[in-house]
C-alpha cells in the first residue's frame, strides 16, 4: 500500500521536523536577539554555533560532566557552553563589533551597514579556519546512548537524544523570552532596540545594552548548537549553511520579533525534514535557501513582523 507507506514517512518526517525544529528555533532566537536589538546582520552567527558544538563536545567528554551521567551529561554540556560563548561574544563586541555599530556608524561610508556585515564575515573566516587548525577537519558528533535509542509512538520513532534536545531548547527559549520581557535588563534591551537615541536620553547605556544583546544572542545560538550536536555530526565549516537556515527562520518569523524567530526556526526545521519526502536528501539545504529567497521576495514582513516604513 503506497499511500500507507507515504503517510508513515510523512508522520515520521513531521515528528523529526518538529524535534529538529526545536534546536533550530532556539538558534533563531539567538540570532533574533542580536538582529532585533542591534539591526546588525551577523554572518559569523553560524560559526558561533559551531563553537558551541565544539565546546559541548569537549565538555561532554570531560570528567566534569561525567558526573551528570551519560543521559543528562550532553545536555548539561550544551548548557555550559552558553556562558563560555557569552564571554566570547562579550570580548568580540567590546574589541571589534562596537566599533562599527551604534553611534559611530553614521559617519562611515554607506552608513556603516556593510562595514558590520564585512566585519562579521571576517570574524567568521577566522573562526572557521581557526577551528580547522584547532579541531581538525574530521566530522564528529556528541554521541550518547540516547542518540541510538528511540521511543515508538505508533509507527513513528522518536530519537531520544532529539527529544531531550527539543525539550531543553523549548525550555531555554521560554526562559530567554521571559527574561527579555520582564527583567529590567531585558526592558533596557528592548528600549535600546526600539529607539536608541530616546533610550540614551532615558538613561539606558545603549552600547552596554547592545553588548549584552550580542553576547546573549551568541550564547543562545551556541547552546542550540550544542543541543543539535547530539544528533548531527559537524566540522569547522558547518556554520555557513546554518547562517542561511537561521536567517530563513528569523525573516520568516518577522525581523525583530523573538517569538517570531522561535516559530520561524521551528517551521524551517519542519520544511527541511518534509522536503526529504519529495526531494533527495542532498537538496535539503537548497530547499531551505529557496524557501528563504521566496520569503524575502514575497513575505518580507514575516509572521510577526511589523510593517516598516519606507522613505
Amino acid at each position: 500500500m503506497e499511500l500507507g507507506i507515504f503517510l508513515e514517512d510523512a508522520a515520521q518526517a513531521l515528528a523529526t521536523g518538529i524535534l529538529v525544529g526545536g534546536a533550530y528555533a532556539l538558534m533563531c532566537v539567538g540570532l533574533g536577539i542580536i538582529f532585533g536589538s542591534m539591526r546588525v546582520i551577523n554572518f559569523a552567527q553560524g560559526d558561533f554555533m559551531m563553537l558551541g558544538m565544539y565546546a559541548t563536545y569537549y565538555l561532554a567528554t570531560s570528567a566534569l560532566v561525567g558526573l551528570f551521567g551519560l543521559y543528562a551529561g550532553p545536555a548539561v554540556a550544551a548548557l555550559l557552553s552558553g556562558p563560555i560563548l557569552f564571554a566570547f561574544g562579550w570580548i568580540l563586541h567590546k574589541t571589534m563589533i562596537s566599533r562599527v555599530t551604534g553611534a559611530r556608524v553614521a559617519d562611515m561610508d554607506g552608513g556603516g551597514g556593510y562595514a558590520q556585515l564585512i566585519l562579521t564575515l571576517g570574524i567568521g573566516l577566522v573562526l572557521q579556519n581557526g577551528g580547522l587548525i584547532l579541531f581538525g577537519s574530521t566530522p564528529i558528533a556528541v554521541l550518547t546512548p540516547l542518540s541510538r535509542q528511540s521511543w515508538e509512538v505508533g509507527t513513528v520513532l522518536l530519537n531520544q537524544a532529539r527529544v531531550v534536545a527539543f525539550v531543553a531548547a523549548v525550555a531555554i527559549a521560554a526562559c530567554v523570552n521571559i527574561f527579555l520581557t520582564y527583567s529590567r535588563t531585558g526592558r533596557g534591551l528592548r528600549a535600546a532596540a526600539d529607539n536608541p537615541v530616546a533610550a540614551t536620553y532615558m538613561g539606558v547605556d545603549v552600547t552596554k545594552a547592545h553588548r549584552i544583546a550580542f553576547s546573549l544572542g551568541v550564547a543562545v545560538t551556541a547552546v542550540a548548537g550544542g543541543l543539535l550536536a547530539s544528533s548531527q555530526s559537524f566540522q569547522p565549516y558547518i556554520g555557513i549553511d546554518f547562517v542561511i537556515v537561521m536567517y530563513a527562520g528569523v525573516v520568516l518569523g518577522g525581523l525583530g520579533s523573538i517569538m517570531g524567530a522561535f516559530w520561524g526556526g521551528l517551521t524551517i526545521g519542519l520544511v527541511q525534514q518534509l522536503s526529504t519526502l519529495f526531494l533527495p536528501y542532498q537538496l535539503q539545504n537548497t530547499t531551505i535557501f529557496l524557501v528563504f529567497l521566496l520569503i524575502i521576495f514575497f513575505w518580507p514582513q514575516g509572521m510577526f513582523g511589523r510593517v516598516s516604513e519606507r522613505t
Partner: protein
Amino acid sequence: MASLSSYRRQQWAIVAIALVYLAVALLVPSSYYQLIIAQVVLWATLGAAWNILSGYSGLVSFGHAVFWGLGAYTVALGMVFFNISPWFGIPLGVVVGVTAAAIIGRITFRLTGHYFALAMLAYPLSILYLFEWMGFQEVSLPIKRENPFAYMQFQDPRVYCVLALVLLTACLFVSLRVEHSRFGMSLLAIKQNERAAEASGINTLKWKMLAIMLSGGFSAAAGGLYAVLLLIVTPPSVFGVAVSSLALIVTLFGGIGSIWGPVIGASILIPLAEVLHGEFGDKVPGIQGVVYGLAIIATILFAQQGVYWRLRDYVRSRRGAAPSEAAVELNAATTAPVIPLPVGKGAGKVPADAEPMLQLSGVSRRFGGLLALNEVSLKVYRGTIHGVIGPNGAGKTTLFNTINGFLDPSAGSIRFEGREIVGLRPDQLCKLGIGRTFQIVRPFARMSVLENIIIGSYVNTTSDAEAEERAWEAIHRVGLTKVANVAAGNLTTKQLRLMELARALAPRPKLLLLDETLAGLAEAELDDILNVVRQLCDQGVTVVIIEHTMHAMARLAHHFTVLDHGSVIADGAPQQVLADPRVIEAYLGKRWVERAAHTGT
C-alpha cells in the same frame, strides 16, 4: 569627471602594471611561484569585476562565487562532455555568467540593504548543493597530450600568467572606461543616494543591470581560466563562500571604488596566504582563511577605504594640499549677491491669470494602518513659490515622494501640465521637468562640486560636454562658481544646500520640489538661499518648498498649504493662513489657541 590627461595616465598605468606582472612572472625561479602569480592575477580580475558592481554602486555582493563557479563549471563540463576546448569554453562561460547575472539582477535588485546581501549569499550556496547532487563533486579536465595548445594546456605556467594578464588588463580598461563615463557617475550616484539619483533622472535599474552583467561576465571568464589552471573543479572550491569572500576581501583591502584596489589587494594578500600555506600548511591547515579573515577585519577596523585611498590621502597631504587651508579660503568666498528682502511683507499675491501647473486631487497614501496622506488636494500655479508647511510627521516629505514618483498614492490623481503622472518612475518625471532636493544632503565628499552636479545634468543630454555645460549653468545660477572645483567634503552647510539646489537645477526642471532647504542654517545664511530661490522663480522655475519653520517662509512664498496628520488644514495666501486658528493649534497646541483667545492677541 576627471580630466582627459588623467584618463590617459591611468591607461598607461594599467599597461605598466601588466608589464611589471609579466616581468615578475618571467623572473621568478620556479613554476610554483609562477602559478601563484597567475592566481594573483585571476583573483585581482575577480576583485576588479566585483568592484564594477559593488565598488561603484555600493551594492555589496556576497555571492560573486556564483559567476566564478558557473564560468569554471562551463569550461570543465564543456570539455568533459562535449570536448569543447577552453578557448571556446571560456567565452561560453562568459555567456552563462552574463545570463545568470541578468537573471539574478532582475530578481535581486528589488531588494535593498540586508535582504540584498543575504539573497546574494544564498545563490552560490544553493547551486553548490545542486551541483553536488547532480554528481559533479569532482570534475577533472581531461589531459590532451596530442594537441595541448588547442586545449589551452601548456607545460610552461608563464603562458597562463600571460592569459590571465590579458583578462585582467581587459577588465581594468573596461573599469576605467566605466569610471570615466556617465555609467560610472550614475553608479556612484546610486551608491551615494539611490533616491537622489532617481530624482536626478537616472534610470537606476538600467545601470545596475549593466553593472552586474559586466561584473558577472568578467568573473565567469576568470573562473573559467581558474579551472584550466587547476585542472580540477569541485563545488566548494568554486561556489564556496571563500570565493565570494575573496572577491570582496582583495578589493576592500586594496581600496574599494578604485581600479587599483583589487590589484593592490590581490598582490599583497594572495602571495602572503599562499606562501604561508606552503610553509606551514601541513601543521596549520586553515592558515590562508585566517590571513584573509584578519586582513578584512583589520581593513574594517583601521582603514575603512583600503590601502589605495589611504596612500592617496597621505601623498596628497604630503604635497601640501591640506584640505583645511582650502576650506578657509572657501569660507571667504561669498556665494550669491545679497539683495535685501522686504522683511515682514509676503512675497506677493498669486497672479490672477496663473494656471495650475501641478494639480493634486484626493491624494491618499497609506502605510499599513497609518494614513500618511489623507485626501490631499492642492494646486500649484506656474511661476509661483508654493510653501508646504506643517509640524513634524505631518506628511510633507511623503507628499513630495508621491509627487516625484518614489511612492504611488493609494488613491487620487496627480496631474503635471495637464498630464496624469501617477505611476511614472522618478527618472521619467525628472525628464518631464520635475526636480527635487532632499532633507539630508549627502554629497560625494571626494568629488568636486562640478562633478557632483554633472550627475544631475546627464538627464536630457546626449553628450558629456553638454552635461558639463549644463552643470556650469546650474552652478552659475546658484552662485557657486568660485568653489566649483573644490571637493564637496570641504563645503559649508550653506554651500552644500546650494550645491544640492544646483544638482536639481542641472536638468533644467520646470517644477522644483525643495525639501527643507533652509534647515540647519543660521539666520544670516537664510537670506542668501532665499535670494537664490526668488531669482529662480523670477527666471520662470515654479517652486514648491517644504519647511517647518514659518517665519522665513512667510517672506518667500506666494501661497501656503498647511498639512497636519496627513490632511490639508489650511490653504491660501500666507497672511490669511497664518491667522487661521487651526494652523496655530497644529503648531503650538490647543492651549495656546485658548490663551490667545482669552488675552485677545
